[in-house]
């Protein structure tokens, strides 16, 4: 920065001077010659977070190779695959794993069925108040935690809840609507719906409305236009939403714990039991690694079959 010698009273605006100061400070802290590493610097916090996760997984992998000595409640010294053997031979864990996968798949199916029309109307509606209403309905659940939402479901669907009250008005029931597998899937769908809509909406926004108009001008009715134009073009959003909903559902703890009545455990609940109920960290770690592996395989299969969707933004079209 230079000053005009003929006008010594001239001062640059404060904002300019502050920016100059900030630039000088930046030059000291992160000299210009390091510029080519700036991208990595910005990535560093995220990489550190992932690194901590990897470190934790590594320690869990180590822990999973020791069985619990019940005389001292310390992990045994020797390395063994016994914990994995216990899981392999256990009918309970097979049931729990199978239930988790089924729960995740059903949740994806029902969530997408509900989220797609929601996102479509959100994106296409010409009325601002409808869009605002839908946005409020979408974001309101984000302000309420998962546990509180599950508790709300317990109240509404309980034997003495609002739904059974309505049944009572027409002379039927009360019915046990809670503490079964459908109740868990219902809770998961309710929890996942906003995530799926948020993943689908950008994909639908990127489809020009003129494309649908063109399809209808060529004779396609709304259904054919939806099937042959909108759905194929929205595929990246559908795949992205499926991946997010699948992984979050597969690893969920609260909904099976609260809405399952104790008999609908998912893998996360089995892991909790081992870590906190029987103090068997080795077996808990083995189950946790199995969950990571299972989730990775499912995601790999989906990406292999359909691509990464909106999660693979950089890939070639």
């Amino acid at each position, binding site marked *: 920065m230079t000053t005009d010698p003929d006008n010594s009273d001239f001062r640059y605006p404060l904002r300019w001077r502050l920016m100059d100061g900030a630039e000088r400070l930046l030059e000291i802290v992160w000299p210009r010659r390091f510029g080519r590493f700036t991208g990595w610097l910005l990535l560093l916090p995220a990489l550190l977070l992932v690194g901590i996760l990897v470190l934790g997984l590594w320690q869990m992998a180590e822990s999973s190779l020791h069985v*619990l000595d*019940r*005389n*001292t*409640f*310390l992990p045994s010294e020797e390395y063994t695959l016994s914990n994995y053997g216990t899981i392999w031979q*256990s*009918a*309970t864990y097979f*049931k*729990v794993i199978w239930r988790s996968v089924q729960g995740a798949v059903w949740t994806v199916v029902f969530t997408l069925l509900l989220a797609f029309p929601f996102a479509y109307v959100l994106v296409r509606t010409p009325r601002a108040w409808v869009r605002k209403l839908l946005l409020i309905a979408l974001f309101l659940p984000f302000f309420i935690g998962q546990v509180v939402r599950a508790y709300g479901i*317990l109240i509404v669907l*309980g*034997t*003495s*809840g609002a739904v059974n009250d309505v049944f009572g008005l027409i002379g039927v029931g009360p019915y*046990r609507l*809670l*503490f079964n597998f459908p109740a868990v899937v219902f809770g998961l769908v309710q929890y996942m719906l906003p995530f799926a809509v948020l993943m689908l909406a950008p994909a639908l926004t990127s489809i020009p409305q003129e494309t649908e108009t063109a399809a209808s001008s060529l004779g396609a009715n709304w259904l054919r236009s939806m099937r042959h134009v909108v759905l194929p073009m929205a595929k990246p959003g559908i795949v992205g939403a499926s991946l997010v909903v699948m992984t979050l559902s597969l690893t969920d703890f609260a909904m099976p714990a609260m809405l399952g*009545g*104790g*008999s609908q*455990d998912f893998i996360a609940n089995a892991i909790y*039991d081992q*870590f*906190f*109920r*029987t*103090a*068997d*960290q080795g077996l808990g770690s083995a189950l946790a690694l199995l969950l990571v592996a299972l989730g990775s395989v499912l995601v790999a299969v989906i990406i292999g079959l359909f691509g990464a969707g909106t999660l693979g933004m950089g890939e070639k079209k």
Partner: protein
Amino acid sequence: MSKKLTRRTMLQAGMATSGAALLSGLPASRLFAQEPEKPKEIIVRAWGGEWVEALKKGVSDPFTAMTGIAVRHDLTEDNEIQPKLWAAVAQKRMPPIHVNWDTTTNATKSALRGVTEDLSDLSNLKNTTELAKPVGLDGYPIVNTYGYVYVLAYRPEAFPDGAPTSWKDLLNPKLKGRIALYNDGIGFHFPAQVAGGGKLSDIPDNMEACWDFVRQIKAQEPLLGEDPDFTNWFQNGEIDAACTISTNALAAKKNGIDLAWTVPVEGCKFDTDGLWVPKGLPENELYWAKQYVNFALTKEAQQVWLDGLGLPGVVPGLTPPAGLEADPSYPTTPEDFEHLIRISAKVQVQNESDWFARFKEIMQG
């Protein structure tokens, strides 16, 4: 409370503890010529709801009044605080709490792992019954503070012909989907062994009778939960009967739920809870943590604390709470214990994981 507690009584107890420490040959660094520096607060892990309210009223508040040390209650679940304490001791960090209110079974695991301080030098131990002593452990790594019974709690309106007399009454088709157990089956394994036609002496080697009976109960589609769930489920009309700790049934009754409880002919599990102090505390905080446990063993503290819980303590001469004088959930005499099942903590600790796994295997099917 018949006798008023004073600061002088408390200090006498403290000096007696120091004296006991001297006699037991502790290193000089453990001996205090005078009262050690007081921390601003000590942290006591507790169960929430009625449980912590009773502890606060009977032990924590009077302790604060006498010593000036605030007591903060940490409501982390007992199972969840356990790995944190174990990790803190293993890493030589200061533990997150000063006193752990714990089940005897869980506390025994911690004692076996070597993370508990020895409490043998507490002066008030001499006034306690045999129930205070942990079975199968050297010294007092934990002090049992009361006993409790896993009763059969029920809604009288669901049993119009009178109270259930046997655990087999839960197999009545009318109760399908209307009964509840703990989600790991705790409290139910031993009576199930008897109800299934087995012998208690076969525990832990042959418990097939237990598992047979659990399978029959599974066909009744029971709800499985934790302490707070039982109260909610009774309150919301979800269940008619449950195997639960009598304190929960008492709490639900106090909340206005029409509830009763009984000890069926096969018997009920009797167990104990206790207090222990984790290793790794600074010397002065360790001293005051021990004083807290010592105070919890006074007759005055036990009377108020256990009135709130409706449970029998470990100090002779306590007056049963109103309404529980001849209650089967408040055993005080040898006759009262005849229908209660008590299995040593050592057997439970070594086999609990297998029992939980077997119970889960049946219930998750």
